[in-house]
């Protein structure tokens, strides 16, 4: 057995970060290839029929689509390094601008959904695993399967019907009421933060009310998934040799479960959390559509509808980068909390 010194954690982290580069490059290449296999050049696809052939040719040259595919590929990759993802065709906006303006809304939605999912999914998973094969376990599993089986937009629609339309408790669309949205100045482009900066507590409260239904919808979807993962992990941990050994030393059942089983069951869960970021972002696209939430997902759909390849490619690139970065961060966190991680 190797004896690990403080240095090996550093070695692991360096290796992991170095591996990150080719991983990103492969993903970017796939995105580029995907977007280029489509027929026609992006400018013609987006604006064909709306402009004269001369104007189109001019736009094509300006965007660099008359050059060879390799030059374009190089432009794409080097652009990303400079954080330049091109300019949208339909409304001539830098793609990074989309993230600056609409990223805050998506971040608010996904992070609050993640918190909700963790608060619901992890405790329920621990309970279900602890009482496995009982009626309570069966009930919790049905809950897990139901939240997974109900598409977010269906769940959102039911919530809108019940809580917004029938009970009238909560608003059902947008990030805040139109008048409130207009009166809060955009500083960070994260509405709740802006409201706080402006010292407008009424606007903040209005924003929170608007956030509840979408965040709950997306959070419930993830909570079922989290619950299932935590449950299985706990069941396997409770069967492990060291849990039996702790029992053999007379460690009380409560301590066995909390100190030995729960902690050890949550470590693999953290590893899997990296993969759930993709699910979270995918769900966010649908949730934003359902609740008319003006985030990245809504923008993606808007640019898809107007067939703006540059915007679509830019958004996908950044989402992919976000997913890969998130999984890098998760791996680093994991290396710190689990002393065994070695490469």
């Amino acid at each position, binding site marked *: 057995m190797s004896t690990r010194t403080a240095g090996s954690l550093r070695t692991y982290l360096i290796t992991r970060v170095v591996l990150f580069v080719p991983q990103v490059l492969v993903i970017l290449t796939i995105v580029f290839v995907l977007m280029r296999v489509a027929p026609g050049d992006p400018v013609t696809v987006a604006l064909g029929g709306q402009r004269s052939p001369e104007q189109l040719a001019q736009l094509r040259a300006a965007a660099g689509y008359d050059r060879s595919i390799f030059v374009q590929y190089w432009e794409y990759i080097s652009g990303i390094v400079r954080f330049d993802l091109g300019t949208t065709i339909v409304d001539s906006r830098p793609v990074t601008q989309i993230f600056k303006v609409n990223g805050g809304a998506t971040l608010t939605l996904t992070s609050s959904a993640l918190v909700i999912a963790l608060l619901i999914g992890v405790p329920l998973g621990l309970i279900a695993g602890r009482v496995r094969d009982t009626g309570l376990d069966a009930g919790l599993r049905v809950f897990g399967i139901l939240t997974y089986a109900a598409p977010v937009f269906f769940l959102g629609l039911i919530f809108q019907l019940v809580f917004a339309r029938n009970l009238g408790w909560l608003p059902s669309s947008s990030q805040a009421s139109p008048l409130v949205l207009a009166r809060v100045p955009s500083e960070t482009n994260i509405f709740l933060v802006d409201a706080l900066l402006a010292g407008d507590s009424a606007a903040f409260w209005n924003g929170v009310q608007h956030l509840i239904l979408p965040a709950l919808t997306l959070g419930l979807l993830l909570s079922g998934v989290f619950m299932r993962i935590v449950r299985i992990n706990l069941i396997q941990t409770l069967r492990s040799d060291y849990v039996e050994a702790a029992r053999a030393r007379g460690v009380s059942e409560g301590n066995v479960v909390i*100190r030995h089983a729960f902690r050890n069951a949550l470590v693999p869960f953290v590893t899997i959390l990296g993969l759930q970021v993709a699910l979270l972002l995918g769900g966010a696209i649908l949730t934003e559509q359902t609740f008319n939430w003006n985030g990245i997902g809504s923008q993606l759909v808007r640019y898809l509808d107007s067939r703006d390849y540059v915007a679509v490619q830019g958004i996908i690139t950044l989402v992919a980068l976000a997913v890969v970065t998130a999984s890098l961060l998760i791996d680093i966190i994991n290396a710190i909390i689990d002393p065994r991680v070695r490469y």
Partner: protein
Amino acid sequence: MTEPVISVRDLRVWYGSERGPVRAVDGVTFDLRPGETLGLVGESGCGKSTLGRGVLGLLPRGAKLAGEVNYEGRNLVTASPKAIQRLRGPDLGLIFQEPLTRLNPLLRISDQFEETLRTHEPGLSKQDIRHRSIEVLRAMGIPPTRYRAYPHEFSGGMRQRIMIALALVLRPSFVVADEPTTALDVLVEAQIIGILGDLRRNFDTSLLFITHNLGIVAEACDRVAVMYAGRIVEQGPVTEVFARPQHPYTRELLRSTISLSTTGLHYIPGAPPDLIEPPSGCRFHPRCPSAMRVCPEQFPEQVEVGPQRVECWLHGPDELVPEGGREPLVREEITVADEA
């Protein structure tokens, strides 16, 4: 003679299976005095480990336990789970076979000692805990500097010594050692055996030493119990049993060990018995070279032969053997009958 620390009477441990109950331990009786080491030997799958766990009440869900395990005037079989849990650690210890997976990988060695000591002696100060843990670890040859290390930073042999230290830090009076050296190499094995020997000399700990290595039994045990198909078929002082085995199974087992003087490999023909439907009468009769007509018919009585206790019709009692029961068993008849 001193009173036994632990005395097991007619202990049975059965598991449920699709085909019917698995009689892993089926009526076992033995005693252990303070400082005494009893070796428990037998082929794999004969119920050795189950017996060790059963004594401590550490059985998987669905296992059924019956009989008596008397410890300090109490029958552990009928005691409440809470009561047994309190005894595990300070009174009853268990050393496992696989040192690599038995320590919680996320907790430092110090945490695992603290937890064990705190559970049973809540009044201890942090200083005392540290002092006592390091003391035991030192005795096992683990330097105090490693006290705050994680399990994965130790070799297999070191981890086994840490496991033993964890089991011994509370000075239990009875310890089950379930093949503690099987996963280790020979040098480490000798070390561990030495440590266990010191233990009973210094603390009067009684040890149930489960192993399939007869060499270790000869070296480290006072008495030996030979297990076959859930029953102890012969038990007695090690020297006597090894010099004059009375049960044919013991004889065969001893013959099949490899020593420097071994010229050929000996093995016991036939498969280990089915614990769901064990053979009728004496469970060893299908493989026994000295089987008689009575053997498949009736369950053998326990008889005393010198200092040993044996379960075998060869040793009588004569008044129970029916007419003609001493005729050698004609084996073909039985196999045909079994298949019919």
